[in-house]
């Protein structure tokens, strides 16, 4: 690795602490310790379940432990300041090491030591001398032809003062750049992740069939408006005969200025992207579209019925109250713990006094009569409307993440499987009038494999006749 020995960075004005910090940032110790710390922290994060509602933690841990963990950020540790500090240190370390290695790598790519002399030959592998009876010009032509098979590309020829010709061949020079590829790729991925969290958003919306939305609430709690409308034309869920899900699909339209610009059926694994915003099939469900409710007097006689579209306040016949359907549950839990079936949540707005919330059980119409009050309600008819649940994501940093990933994979492949190989050959006529060829080479990695390659080349050269 002689050519790869790192060249020390120029110390700035000899200030001791600067070089100390620099040495710390470029030390192998730092990187190994950082990698192991990150591994340990990550393990912790999988043992303590992350980002659960607080009450779940109280179920698992003592209240004191919950308070401590919560203060330390252990419930959302991948976003805690100390985890971010570790990642930043890693980024700094990678940057510093890249700068530190820059000159060494560039130096290794330069063509130097073009003359195969005594001193150079000692650092080469498979150093061999071959003698021929043929004239030098013949040997040169055949040597160039045969070596050219293993080392394509022009060789560099230098004549030394003693009349010896030196030929320099190399290949895989740019494999030395794999170091930059693997290390800068990590920084690019970090940049992409940061760009995503600063300039992007993630959110979620439910859109009922036939309806459209033009804004959403992001995970961070902001309202994000879109430059267009998304309409859910239809939603379909299909199941296998065993009951397990087979396919979820939403037929979506994007509208701009009232005109449809794109229409696509999205599925899980097949989202729709428009103007950098991507819509993913995430969940589905149903909400009451229209509910017809009977109003009953105390005693049980019907005083009238009322049709309530979802989300609209409607007058209750016979009294001055208003009623609104606000919620729906597929599996309502009764107070005694039993399953109550479908339930419609309504809010009653009396003429005087506070609004009241009530659950009306579709499958147990008598349920509301057990409550206090002058009148009770029961669901006479319930029309449901399906909705699709979409995950919405805008991530301008994504492209950087994929670019970094590709660079990382390519860099690792090159680093492991390619090496910079150099070959020197010198030709001269020796004092007995014979043609003398000397050959030797080096590789910056995997010298065993290069040794085998060298043996093959030497064998080829020996067979020149």
């Amino acid at each position, binding site marked *: 690795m002689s050519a790869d020995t790192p060249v020390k960075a120029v110390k700035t004005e000899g200030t001791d602490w600067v070089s100390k910090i620099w040495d710390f940032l470029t030390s192998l110790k730092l990187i190994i310790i950082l990698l*192991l710390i990150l591994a340990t922290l990550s*393990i912790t994060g999988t043992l303590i379940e992350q980002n659960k509602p607080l009450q779940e933690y109280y179920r698992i841990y003592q209240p004191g432990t919950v308070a401590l963990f919560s203060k330390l950020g252990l419930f959302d540790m991948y976003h805690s300041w100390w985890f971010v500090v570790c990642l930043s240190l890693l980024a700094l370390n990678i940057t510093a090491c890249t700068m530190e290695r820059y000159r060494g790598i560039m130096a290794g790519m330069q063509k130097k030591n073009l003359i195969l002399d005594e001193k150079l030959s000692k650092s080469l592998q498979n150093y061999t001398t071959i003698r021929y009876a043929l004239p030098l010009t013949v040997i040169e032509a055949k040597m160039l032809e045969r070596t050219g098979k293993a080392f394509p590309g022009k060789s560099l020829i230098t004549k030394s003062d003693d009349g010896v010709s030196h030929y320099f061949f190399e290949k895989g020079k740019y494999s030395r750049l794999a170091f930059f590829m693997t290390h800068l790729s990590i920084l690019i991925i970090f940049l992409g992740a940061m760009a995503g969290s600063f300039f992007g958003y993630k959110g979620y919306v439910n859109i009922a069939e036939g309806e459209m939305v033009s804004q959403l609430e992001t995970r961070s709690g902001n309202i994000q408006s879109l430059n267009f409308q998304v309409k859910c034309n239809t939603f379909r869920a299909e199941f296998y005969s065993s009951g397990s899900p087979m396919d979820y699909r939403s037929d979506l339209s994007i509208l701009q200025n009232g005109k449809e610009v794109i229409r696509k059926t999205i599925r899980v694994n097949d*989202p729709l992207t428009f103007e950098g915003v991507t819509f993913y099939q995430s969940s589905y469900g149903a909400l009451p579209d229209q509910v017809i409710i009977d109003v009953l007097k105390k005693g049980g006689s019907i005083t009238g019925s009322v049709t309530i579209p979802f989300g609209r306040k409607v007058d209750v016949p016979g009294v001055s109250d208003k009623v609104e359907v606000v919620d729906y549950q597929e599996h309502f839990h009764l107070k005694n713990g039993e399953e109550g079936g479908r339930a419609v949540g309504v809010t009653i707005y009396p003429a005087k006094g506070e609004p009241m919330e009530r659950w009306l059980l579709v499958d147990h119409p008598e349920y509301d009569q057990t409550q206090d009050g002058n009148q009770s309600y029961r669901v006479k008819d319930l029309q449901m409307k399906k909705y699709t649940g979409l995950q919405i994501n805008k991530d301008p940093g994504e492209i950087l993440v994929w670019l970094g990933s590709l660079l990382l994979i390519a860099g690792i492949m090159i680093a492991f499987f390619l090496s910079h190989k150099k070959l020197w050959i010198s030709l001269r006529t020796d004092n007995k009038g014979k043609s003398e060829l000397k050959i030797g080479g080096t590789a910056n990695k995997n010298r065993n494999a290069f040794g085998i390659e060298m043996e093959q080349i030497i064998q080829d050269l020996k067979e020149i006749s």
Partner: protein
Amino acid sequence: MTNSLLFGIATFVYFFAMVLYVSYLAFRSEVLGKVASISLLGGVVVETAAIGMRWYESYQMGIGRAPLTNLYESLAFFAWTIAVIYLVLERKFKIKTVGAFVAPFPFLIMAYAALNPNDIQPLVPALKSNWLISHVVSCFVGYAAFAVSFCVSVLYFIKVGAESRSPKSGGSFWGFLPSSSALDEIGYKTIAIGFPLLTIGIVTGAFWANVAWGTYWSWDPKETWSLIVWLIYAAYLHARITRGWRGKRAAILSIVGFAATLFCYLGVNLILSGLHSYGSMS
């Protein structure tokens, strides 16, 4: 189903291969060694047919999916990749004696797989993706490479101990093993195969997650553990390449790395909860 029968036969062939490799170790007969390699190869051929048959039969059932989606199938594929990677390395590095320590894995894994339900279930929507095959194959070939490196690293410790006790005979009883420095080198080379594949596995997984759920990294336990494995082997490679860590320290990291790999593969599914539900033992 024909595929179950073929998987059963493959398990038996792996068992015989294991017995033959151990016998080769005991008797050092060239013929035994050849037969051992051939039977392991035979196991691979039968299991390849089994995997192909299972794939084909899933189409006949009208399901049509790659056989890589539940615990049974992933264990069977894991056994297959270990056998294949080992056979390639045996040819390349002439390490037949190591076979006695690697060959039990395909058999034991297949035997464990047989304890799990093996009916062909249709895929849930999230798994219906072209990324399934590339993601699973790259991860598992990486895991298998780490498994072989683990075996070689354990052998390294045995060999080093034997060499220090009787330096002249190259470790008397353990003399048949490759030298400790050769084991060290093979352990490294195997990781050098596994690491790029694990990287590809993580990247394809992230890409797939982004297509399916709109997020390429969610710190799900499986993702996090694959990152932990990646970090451990990254530490190994940095220590080895830039600091020349060889021998014991490198072997310890390789063993720790494989322990993390096993947890990532099985532990996460059996103990923690997350997106990769194939391993849940309910």
